């Protein structure tokens, strides 16, 4: 009984540590005064200013657009790569996989500056396109690493059976292989999408003037000091993340109960 209480107490302390800063941010996003110390009454003006802030709106636009395009392209290239690599000889496979691990293991800052050097070396204008290329590059390995295990589980004879039954290779690929590895593809795509949404370091080094994502905008605002608009942004983001997680959790528990009933 005592240990149970202690466990609850410990969880409470850790959660207080994790949530207190976020909670304070949210509360002070409704504060009328710009300074943090005193409460000057309830207001929604920071939210109104946020919605009128051109810089933040364009950053939001670039963040979402780059996340969608880069995860889409990375999923296509990565899935194709995983299937091709799967059929290669052992040593070629391990060579390519080792190189694939490089961006995963490398510190972000090294990946960022190495891509920046490449783009400048190739005399490319840093901006939207270079940032997109960088995002695709760091996304592809995660897609490959999500699809690979599914390919290893795949029953080889399924494909041969389809061919024996008269399917063309393309038809068998489309109707047998792809559905079998679909869960891996979806995991990879989602992983790529969230990583791209959240990335700061690599974007910071590969973008140019005029194009920035949300993380870069927050960084440059925070460096200049406290800004209540960031608080408003935080509470909006916290609420969207929270509702997303609740929806996912509800759906997952529904799936589980369906499976249990069946």
């Amino acid at each position, binding site marked *: 009984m005592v240990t149970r209480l202690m466990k609850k107490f410990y969880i409470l302390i850790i959660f207080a540590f*994790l949530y207190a800063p976020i909670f304070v941010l949210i509360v002070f996003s409704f504060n009328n005064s710009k300074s943090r110390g005193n409460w000057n009454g309830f207001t929604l003006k920071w939210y109104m200013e946020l919605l009128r802030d051109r810089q933040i709106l364009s950053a939001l636009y670039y963040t979402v657009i780059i996340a969608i395009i880069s995860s889409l392209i990375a999923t296509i290239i990565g899935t194709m790569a995983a299937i091709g690599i799967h059929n*290669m000889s052992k040593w070629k496979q391990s060579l390519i996989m080792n190189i694939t691990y490089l961006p995963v293991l490398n510190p972000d800052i090294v990946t960022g500056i190495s891509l920046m050097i490449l783009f400048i070396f190739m005399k490319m204008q840093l901006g939207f396109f270079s940032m997109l290329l960088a995002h695709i590059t760091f996304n592809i390995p995660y897609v490959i690493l999500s699809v690979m295990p599914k390919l290893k589980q795949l029953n080889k004879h399924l494909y041969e059976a389809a061919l024996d039954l008269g399917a063309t290779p393309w038809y068998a690929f489309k109707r047998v292989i792809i559905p079998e590895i679909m869960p891996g593809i979806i995991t990879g795509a989602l992983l790529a999408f969230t990583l791209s949404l959240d990335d700061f370091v690599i974007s910071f080094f590969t973008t140019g003037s005029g194009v920035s994502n949300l993380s870069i905008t927050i960084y440059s605002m925070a460096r200049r000091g406290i800004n209540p608009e960031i608080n408003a942004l935080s509470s909006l983001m916290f609420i969207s993340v929270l509702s997303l997680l609740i929806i996912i959790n509800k759906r997952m528990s529904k799936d589980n109960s369906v499976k249990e009933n069946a």
Partner: protein
Amino acid sequence: MKQRWIAYPYIVWMVIFILVPLLLVVFYSVTTVTDEGIQFSLEHFKRFLEPVYLIVLLRSIYLAFISTVICLVLGYPMAMILASKDISKKQFIVLLFILPMWMNFLLRTYAWMTLLENSGLINTFLSFIGLPNLNLLYNHQAVVLGMVYNFLPFMVLPIYSVLSKIDKSIIEAAQDLGANNFIVFRRIIFPLSLPGVMSGITMVFMPSVTTFVISRLLGGGQYTLIGNLIEQQFLYVGDWNFGSALSVILIIIILLSMGVMSKYDKEHEGGGLW
């Protein structure tokens, strides 16, 4: 299905955007521009051995080490509690634990700025109850706090997943044989959780040693880490050669620490670099 060509777009991509950039970094790190053109030289690495820069490296490793230790001390009990059966609504609690990780990394760091600054909430509270103000922001402790806050889940989750996979019958067998709780922990639970501890340590240490955001926002300009030094070389000073040499050193540190860690990780399945 035997077609290997469908991997070729990726291989081309990989060579252009993974291999060539890294080779460029290595190339810049060992060359120098003189009047006679580009020449091979190790002067950038030699320059790194100057005390000014060595201190930066030692400080990065020191702060990352302290953060890792604090994360382990705070995180291991948390992982054990999450893995234990007698917690109600366990799934919900694990979810709540992951939730802050989904918030933008910069917003989480910024949150601490607003708490710690001189006119921030903590100092307002202190002066409200009549205590003198403290300088909480822009020092070592603030940087360590930021690292612990941001990377604690990376320590807890691997340990939690290893602990919840432990076969309960082993623990029961030990108890049947007369072991008390402490011996069960020391001889059974802890050794079995080591792979999780090792990957937790790697996952906290690596981002801590390479960060430049936390040190910039919470440490101010004074507490430069190796990440800040690299950022400065590329964005402000424009000395790509020295910046590249620093990056190469950073890669070597990461590879060394991962090599050491993976020695303990016996379950590691092949395919990785180590």
